[in-house]
């Protein structure tokens, strides 16, 4: 199969152009030969030029006119008839004395005829036969000379016609091979059916089903479908399906296989057939089921984890309260009897208990975020900011902090969580302040599908390598003496932002302040 195939219409057109040139040229050469050999013969140059120009004009017009290109066969036949008629006229004018004139026109035209369509070939043969008959009847002396070239004509026609038809058949076979190769080498199974009866199947489908081509072709396509799915299959076979339809196919060995089929009708001649593609989806279905199982397990383990964190931190409080209270009692009741060392140890115990208490409380807050999901509502970020800064009133006053903000939009979310988010970010900005009084600015920008908020401060900043880590649970960058805390604030922030379909990140230059940015999805999101 050749890769670059010339369009057959284009090839035929080119052939006609060459024939026009060739036949016209021969006809002119013939004029010269007749003039040389039979100077007294009737052989007008003008008449020949008219015929030649007419034939060449057809060739020239194929370049200019689409109509001529489309009707080139008809026009070419007309040209040949013109040529033949002119020969007949010449023959008549020369009183039947020029045998070779007759022979020549038949020989030349025979070559041309071989390439013509069957209909025009028949029409021309009838015309030539009638002409020959007329010559034979009227001029018995020419009988032999006309018959011999006439016979040659017929033989040539038959031979060349057959030859060209064979070429066409070869082309057709090659093209069919090419189609079959493509048909069989697709990964999808393909079948062609007419009214449910299978006309053609490809190798991929035979491999999938285990049947041989002989077993499949000619049978009802529904025979190969699971009994319960036949109704759906019938719909696909009659109406077609542009989106995949799931069915069960019964293999030759009786096993079931999940398939997806699509169908598309097409016209083949006057009949309507349908192309159906078949895809084996067993593996895909298995993968999907597996994914679903993994997902369910993940959801379950995540829920377990949340419950665990909640219950653990909740239950841890009881023994802790016991320790704290009895240490307290010990100190208040027996304080005077204890020496300095014992008092110090007791106060260290108290401090540790306090710290543990804070850790547990924060962990409880963190696990509660997911344990108590609430419906989203419209929340004014301005109000949320006011509430958060209200809760920080003492800290703001003590640090002489100044909090400013752009005009803040309304978002869809969980009010108390958003307040918590701002509270933690503002709290951090105040807590990790530099020498100067804290200046905190909250900016808001609108983006395509989300809001972008920035909380900018002039605090101590964060080294670049910690920009991501600070969002991890219990990740701290300072010791308890420098900045007491548990390292849960930003983890809570990340969780809140996650639940609002956003992202949170920090940018900072150590010593020059930090900017924490977070996004919140627009629209009516749900937790």
């Amino acid at each position, binding site marked *: 199969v050749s890769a670059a195939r010339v369009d057959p219409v284009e090839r035929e057109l080119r052939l006609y152009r060459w024939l026009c040139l060739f036949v016209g040229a021969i006809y002119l050469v013939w004029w010269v030969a007749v003039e040389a050999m039979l100077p007294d013969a009737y052989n007008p140059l003008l008449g020949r030029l008219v015929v030649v120009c007419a034939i060449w004009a057809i060739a020239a017009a194929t370049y200019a006119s689409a109509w001529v290109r489309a009707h080139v066969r008809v026009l070419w036949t007309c040209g040949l008839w013109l040529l033949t008629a002119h020969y007949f006229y010449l023959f008549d004018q020369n009183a039947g004395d020029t045998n070779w004139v007759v022979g020549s026109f038949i020989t030349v035209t025979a070559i041309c005829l071989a390439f013509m369509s069957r209909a025009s070939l028949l029409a021309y043969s009838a015309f030539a036969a009638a002409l020959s008959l007329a010559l034979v009847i009227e001029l018995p002396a020419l009988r032999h000379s006309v018959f011999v070239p006439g016979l040659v004509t017929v033989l040539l026609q038959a031979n060349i016609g057959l030859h060209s038809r064979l070429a066409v058949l070869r082309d057709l076979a090659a093209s069919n091979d090419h189609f079959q190769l493509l048909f069989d080498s697709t990964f999808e199974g393909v079948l062609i059916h007419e009214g449910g009866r299978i006309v053609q199947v490809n190798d991929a489908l035979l491999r999938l089903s285990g049947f041989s081509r002989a077993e499949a072709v000619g049978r009802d396509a529904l025979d190969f479908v699971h009994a319960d799915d036949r109704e759906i299959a019938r719909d696909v076979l009659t109406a077609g399906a542009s989106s995949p339809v799931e069915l069960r196919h019964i293999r030759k060995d009786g096993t079931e296989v999940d398939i997806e089929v699509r169908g598309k009708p097409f016209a083949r001649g006057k009949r309507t057939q349908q192309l159906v593609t078949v895809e084996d989806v067993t593996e895909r279905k298995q993968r999907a089921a597996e994914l679903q199982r993994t997902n369910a397990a993940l959801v379950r383990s995540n829920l377990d984890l949340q419950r665990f964190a909640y219950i653990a931190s*909740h239950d841890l409080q009881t023994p802790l*309260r*016991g320790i704290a209270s009895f240490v307290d009692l010990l100190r*208040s009741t027996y304080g005077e009897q204890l020496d300095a060392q014992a008092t110090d140890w007791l106060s260290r115990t108290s401090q540790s208990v306090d710290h543990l208490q804070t850790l547990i409380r924060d962990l409880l807050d963190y696990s509660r975020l997911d344990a108590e999901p609430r419906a989203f509502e419209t929340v004014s970020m301005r109000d949320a900011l006011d509430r958060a800064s209200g809760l920080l009133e003492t800290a703001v006053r003590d640090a002489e902090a100044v909090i400013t903000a752009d005009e803040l939009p309304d978002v869809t979310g969980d009010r108390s969580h958003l307040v918590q988010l701002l509270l933690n970010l503002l709290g951090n900005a105040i807590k990790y302040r530099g020498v100067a009084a804290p200046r905190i600015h909250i900016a808001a920008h609108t983006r395509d599908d989300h809001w972008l908020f920035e909380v900018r401060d002039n605090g101590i900043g964060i080294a670049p390598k910690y920009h991501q880590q600070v969002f991890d649970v219990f990740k701290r960058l300072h010791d308890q003496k420098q900045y007491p805390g548990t390292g849960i604030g930003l983890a809570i922030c990340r969780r809140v932002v996650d639940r609002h379909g956003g992202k949170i990140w920090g940018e900072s230059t150590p010593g020059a302040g930090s900017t924490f940015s977070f996004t919140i999805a627009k629209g009516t999101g749900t937790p």
Partner: protein
Amino acid sequence: MNDVLVRGWPAVILLAEDNDNDVELTKLGFKRAKFAVDLHHVANGEECLAFLRKEGTYSAAPTPDIILLDLNMPRMDGIEVMQELGKDEALKHLVVVVLTSSKADEDVIRSYKLRCNSYLVKPINFEAFAKMIESLGDYWFTLVTLPPVARS
């Protein structure tokens, strides 16, 4: 003795609490606050109801002026106890003060829906706890008029 007496005799308190430490601390809290109380202790909800209904070993039990009820208890928790009390015509007038370590919104709401009289969260250290017990006594034993109790 300058301990505060309620209606001329010590207030009867029923503490439903499974944690021994908390029982001890509550006793110490009343002692510190100088309230004369007759404190009875049960370790779970079932015992609590048996005490109130004077069933079994509790046939001689007094009717408490106040029930201090922990929520998180084995066998029958505080919420279930309150549900039972609500259904019992003879007991539904009793004063129930929830005393728990749970700060969960859900627990608070559920308790008030079951008509508890107060909801108190146990503080972390003893000083705060003692103070809370003192305030509790001040309120319930001096300000509030408690439902009358038949004394034998």
